[in-house]
């Protein structure tokens, strides 16, 4: 189900093959969670071959800093998607948060923290509204968040009169572009990366807790979840709250990294959904791991870096992106009996039919990332 639950991974239900290696190969090619890690490595190797200097710690950190907002967004989107919904409003929300920050802070260093607090509240508020409309008013999340996207897009421009005004402070922007230790030009670990790691760990822990399990169960079959005592509406609303919070953090990071423009956040919702799906998370809910979703975001950003290295004309990039996401999902969806066969099914692909293999003690699973 998710990489954070190795006990349920397919290998547990398959007849053991020769050694851990072929099992590992099978898992990597299985098209689910593990494929994205393989894809990520392939893309990284390709970039390194094209441009060996990319492997230097500073370049890697610069790359991670650029990728951090999308990873954070992917975490938030993962919560919503795994619970069986969509959130199309995150792109607008990121844009709205950046504009709000610029307008309210307006260069006043002392305003930085109060405004960040306000932004978090605003993000949670948007998530809460999304969640309640979806769960209590039963409006499909696609429509709810589409409407929210329009509302936010219009409201922010209405408020600022069309173009973003004000400016961000250094104290605000450091989160997106600064790092530890604070010596520009030398190696440093960007705050953005630290924040992303912390949020990633929190997400993994949350998904292992009862809430996470309930979330996945709700996404898999909300009727069954409801009959087993889950308050489906509250579980899903909390997923939207997470998404709103993550979009806020992403907004802070993007605002710090790239500054304020009118186009901030445009198209980010589709990027985030693409990243999550690239990570093997099934649209419609119930399947996929949060770490793989983060890896999907990283892969997407690595692909864009690769396109840069290949100096493709920028106009052709969407086409390549389209081919890749279709290919990745088609590959994951290829019929494989190992993924659909129930435990103990008579014909597992690794077991020649009719040859009962002796049960070998299960080998220790590779540590879950």
């Amino acid at each position: 189900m998710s990489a954070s639950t190795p006990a349920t991974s397919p290998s547990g239900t398959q007849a053991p093959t020769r050694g851990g290696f072929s099992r590992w190969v099978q898992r990597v090619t299985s098209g689910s969670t593990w494929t994205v890690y393989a894809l990520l490595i392939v893309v990284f190797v390709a970039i390194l071959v094209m441009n060996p200097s990319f492997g230097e710690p500073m370049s890697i950190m610069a790359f991670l800093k650029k990728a951090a907002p999308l990873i954070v967004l992917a975490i938030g989107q993962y919560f919503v998607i795994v619970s069986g919904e969509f959130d199309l409003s995150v792109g607008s929300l990121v844009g709205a948060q950046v504009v709000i920050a610029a307008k309210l802070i307006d260069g006043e260093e002392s305003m930085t923290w109060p405004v960040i607090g306000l932004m978090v509240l605003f993000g949670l508020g948007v998530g809460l509204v999304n969640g309640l409309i979806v769960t209590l008013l039963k409006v499909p999340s696609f429509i709810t968040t589409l409407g929210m996207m329009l509302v936010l897009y219009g409201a922010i421009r209405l408020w600022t009169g069309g173009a973003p005004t004000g400016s961000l402070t250094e104290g605000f922007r450091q989160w997106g572009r600064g790092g530890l230790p604070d010596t520009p030009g030398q190696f440093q670990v960007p705050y953005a990366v630290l924040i992303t790691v912390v949020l990633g760990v929190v997400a993994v822990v949350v998904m292992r807790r009862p809430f996470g399990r309930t979330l996945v169960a709700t996404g898999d079959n909300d009727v069954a979840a409801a009959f087993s005592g889950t308050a489906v509406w509250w579980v899903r609303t909390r997923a939207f709250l997470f998404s709103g919070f993550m979009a806020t953090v992403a907004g802070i990071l993007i605002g710090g990294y790239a500054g304020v423009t009118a186009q901030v956040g445009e198209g980010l919702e589709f990027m985030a959904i693409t990243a999550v799906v690239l990570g093997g998370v099934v649209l419609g809910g119930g399947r996929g791991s949060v770490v793989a979703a983060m890896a999907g975001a990283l892969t997407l950003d690595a692909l864009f870096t690769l396109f840069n290295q290949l100096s493709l004309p920028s106009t052709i990039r969407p086409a390549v992106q389209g081919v890749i996401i279709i290919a990745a999902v088609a590959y994951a969806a290829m019929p494989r009996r190992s993924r659909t066969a129930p435990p103990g099914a008579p014909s597992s692909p690794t077991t020649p039919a009719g040859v009962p293999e002796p049960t070998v003690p299960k080998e220790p699973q590779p540590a879950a990332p």
Partner: protein
Amino acid sequence: MSTAVSTASPRAGSVTSGPRRRRLGSTGIVYLALVGILAVSAGLVAAQGGSFFSQGNLFYLLSQTSLLGFVAIGQTFVILCKSLDLSVGYVVAWSSLVAATTMAGDPSRIWLGVVAALAVAAGVGLVNGLVISKLRVNSFIATLGVGLIIKGYLDTQYKGPSGEIPKAFQGFGYTRIGPVPVSVIVLAVVMVLGVVLLTRTRPGYHMFAVGGNIDVARLSGIRTDRSIILAHVLCSLCAGVAGLLIAARFGTGNALVYTYGYDLNSIAAVVLGGTLLMGGRGSILGTIAGVLILASLDTVFNVLDVSPFFKDVLRGAIIIAAVAMYARRQIDPASSRARFRALGRSVGPGSGPDGGGPGSASPTSTTGKEATR
């Protein structure tokens, strides 16, 4: 209005009986909402001393309707099949370019241009349908990907407007017969064809069945892949017609048409029209009402000179509010067939490929709307 459709067999209508017979179907509610919005619009415009139903306003409303209408009718087929098409905006742009560059200002090449544009559109639909049904890619991702591919091609190939539409064909965009634009007449023809397809023919019934529950449909002997491919080809064809219309209005083809948001707007219109986003229930007449609602909002905002940003806010809020208004009713378990009454399921893309819940297991279930027949 009473032709609101589902695959209800004649007998299914008699299952729901009693007071429910008089309940308003979702299409009825949509038309009520439309009437309400028209009334409010007329009142607001009248308060400003204008007339909402003036010739100019009606013409604007109808021409807005026809553009989105074609795309939304196509989108209805796809959504009925529990699929989705996010590539329509790019298809509209592409077919307008193909038409304009093929015609190249030569009146004798009009039909060639029309055929070429529709062929390109149908080809995109075929690819969409094949990717979704044969490669089993989720429709959201498949059509998003195909759309991105087209976007990449268009941006690389066409820098700015190109081609020229002959004067004779520009009439498709501007001419009116009496007060009615030609494009609206074409839209009406397409609408009638669509309604007949969905309510009177086998492929139409199959679409409802596939959208209701694809596994049950397959077990009943329906070639589900064909239904999905057909729906996508029809959807893209409709988008192609919209592309022709846009080309006729502009007099040239333009790639930037894809920024007009036809993809999300058409989905909003379809859902506003009472078609379930999870497939299996809905009607083209409802979709038309949804399009009319969006178009009258646009018209009244225009007349009242509302700030374009405030327009977005209102449009978003109204879409949510309108869908919320009848979302509860649609999934009201009591409106399903009695047998499934206890198993009502919430709306949303919540049922994954393996999560087909019991609620979706009633492709021939009856809502109140059949009872109004």
